[in-house]
């Protein structure tokens, strides 16, 4: 089902969605950046830079109460809001990150706490000419319930699954030829960092990156953990208990593999006992361990860690250094 919408139709569509969901839409902040905001009919920022806040945080928040324990020791799971989220404005990269965390938390034994929030949520992609300066964002290959495709003066809309068809039922048909043009453009679209990251992945897999490189990169790390906290596929957490007047609230809280205590055991043994080992782990896990485990890298090329890192050792920067320093040129 392909439909044609104009901009006021988008507000109509979102208004209907907001009746059943906690709808979040892209809004423009005073500093010029965009973020997803609760929607109450306000103006939506339909074009621009991707929001820095990771979309996976809606289903795996930074502090996430898991359960309550009453003074008698009886534990009950923490309640999850009845109304599910609807997230509007996700590009193909953020949708890939959500698909990654969906698979991670669904892997047996499934993480019921994540799934309670995620099940029933509505993911709405925003693609086509909706990028910075109305640049092109590739179309989505699945991973979302609805997709709005910016085509200049109008929008194409399609449902990602049968159950979402009804949202678009009363709009006029869209132009299939226009969709085909955009699909061809998507197939030719390349991420600017993809080559470096792919090359770094191969060099790491072949063990071509010496320990001295990680020592050098780690010496620039100030342990702010911003890379992990910004990354939409970072799912590591620690557990904290907070005492309240009515008992104990146990929460999981985002953790960072860049920190010394991340793997330190009660015995004092620490498999990641140096900054170099931890920095290597951060990159290696995304580019080698995740593909081995899940069939695809944990880096979805969103660039958030590079934007967050104050010392320039995010994924793109490190991959570029690896590719430029250790790649063996192919013989002519």
């Amino acid at each position: 089902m392909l439909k044609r919408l104009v901009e006021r139709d988008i507000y109509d569509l979102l208004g209907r969605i907001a009746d059943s969901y906690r709808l979040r839409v892209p809004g423009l902040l005073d500093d010029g950046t965009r973020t997803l905001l609760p929607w109450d009919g306000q103006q939506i920022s339909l074009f621009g830079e991707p929001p820095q806040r990771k979309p996976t945080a809606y289903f795996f928040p930074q502090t996430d109460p898991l359960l309550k324990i009453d003074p008698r020791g009886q534990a009950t799971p923490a309640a999850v809001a009845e109304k599910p989220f609807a997230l509007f404005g996700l590009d193909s990269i953020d949708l890939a990150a959500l698909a990654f965390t969906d698979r991670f938390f669904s892997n047996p034994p499934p993480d019921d706490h994540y799934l309670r929030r995620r099940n029933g949520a509505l993911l709405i992609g925003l693609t086509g000419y909706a990028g910075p300066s109305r640049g092109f964002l590739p179309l989505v290959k699945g991973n979302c319930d609805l997709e709005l495709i910016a085509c200049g003066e109008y929008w194409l809309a399609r449902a990602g699954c049968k159950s979402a068809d009804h949202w678009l039922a009363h709009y006029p048909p869209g132009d299939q030829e226009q969709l085909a043009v955009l699909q061809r453009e998507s197939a030719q679209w390349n991420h600017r960092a993809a080559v470096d990251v792919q090359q770094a992945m191969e060099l790491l897999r072949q063990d071509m990156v010496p320990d001295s490189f990680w020592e050098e990169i780690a010496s620039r790390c100030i342990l702010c953990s911003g890379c992990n906290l910004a990354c939409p596929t970072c799912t590591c957490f620690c557990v904290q208990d907070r005492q309240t007047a009515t008992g104990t609230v146990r929460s999981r809280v985002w953790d960072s593999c860049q920190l010394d205590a991340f793997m330190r055991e009660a015995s004092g043994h620490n498999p990641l006992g140096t900054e170099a080992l931890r920095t290597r782990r951060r990159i290696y896990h995304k580019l080698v361990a995740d593909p081995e485990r899940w069939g695809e890298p944990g880096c979805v090329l969103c660039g958030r860690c590079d934007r967050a890192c104050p010392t320039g050792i995010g994924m793109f920067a490190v991959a570029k250094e690896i590719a430029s320093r250790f790649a063996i040129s192919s013989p002519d």
Partner: protein
Amino acid sequence: MPQPLNDSTSIYVPQPCTLLEVSDLTPQEKLFRLCLDSGGELGQQPGQFVQVSIPGLTEAPISVANSPTRRGYFELGVRKAGTLTGAMHQLQPGDTLGIRGPFGRPFQLAALVDKEVLLIAGGCGLAPLRSLIQYCQDRPGDFKSVHILYGARSPQDLLFKEDLENWQSSETFSCRYIVDKSPGSSCYDGETGLITRLIGALEIDSKNGCAVVVGPPPMYRPVIAELRRLGLTGKRQIMLSLERQMRCGIGKCGHCTIEHLYCCTDGPIFWLEEIEHLRGAL
């Protein structure tokens, strides 16, 4: 899209259990005997662990120290090392705890059947290995022979002293233990030195041998080298239990990863060849 959930329970909610007995193993280690308040069995297999929960102090992973063949209770050997284990050491019979689990890949029991089995523990590693030793004790016909080797730092660090005497006098096992150092004031008259000394003294049919090793991380490499000198050079001949920080026990928190493996779900029991090539595993 994730799959729908069928019920309202949560994998993060501990089930209540009650402390039946507490006994001192050493000045730093105690043995806790517990039962589930539900009246059911824990259902563990040798080598598995539970997450022990105390409100206000979160959770800690503790190996189960008794065999499932000993029914009606489960036991945890716990060294006082942090706030949660420190609080556990203050508990009295009748007190309650929370438990999640059992979790993890257990010892590969089928691989030990009809084998010359070497059970090698260092320090606190005897607690999880005890579950397998008891299992072997209760199924003596399953194995060709069972050799227990145990090393501790000093005589006062030896765990399960009564069990050690029992195993030494048992016809099911050969059992030797050794301490790194024995202070002159000690009345200990047993062997001193590293556990590798005990391995080198063994005579076994190496082609039919299988070793299970549980100990502190620095123990693994020298013990593996000694086992190889003994002739255990094939696949599925050396099984290890790895120690890692585990916050969840179910492969979600990420603290126990070894490259692409999750120690809490892919382990803690591994065949040597599964992890030997992975950086940081040993």
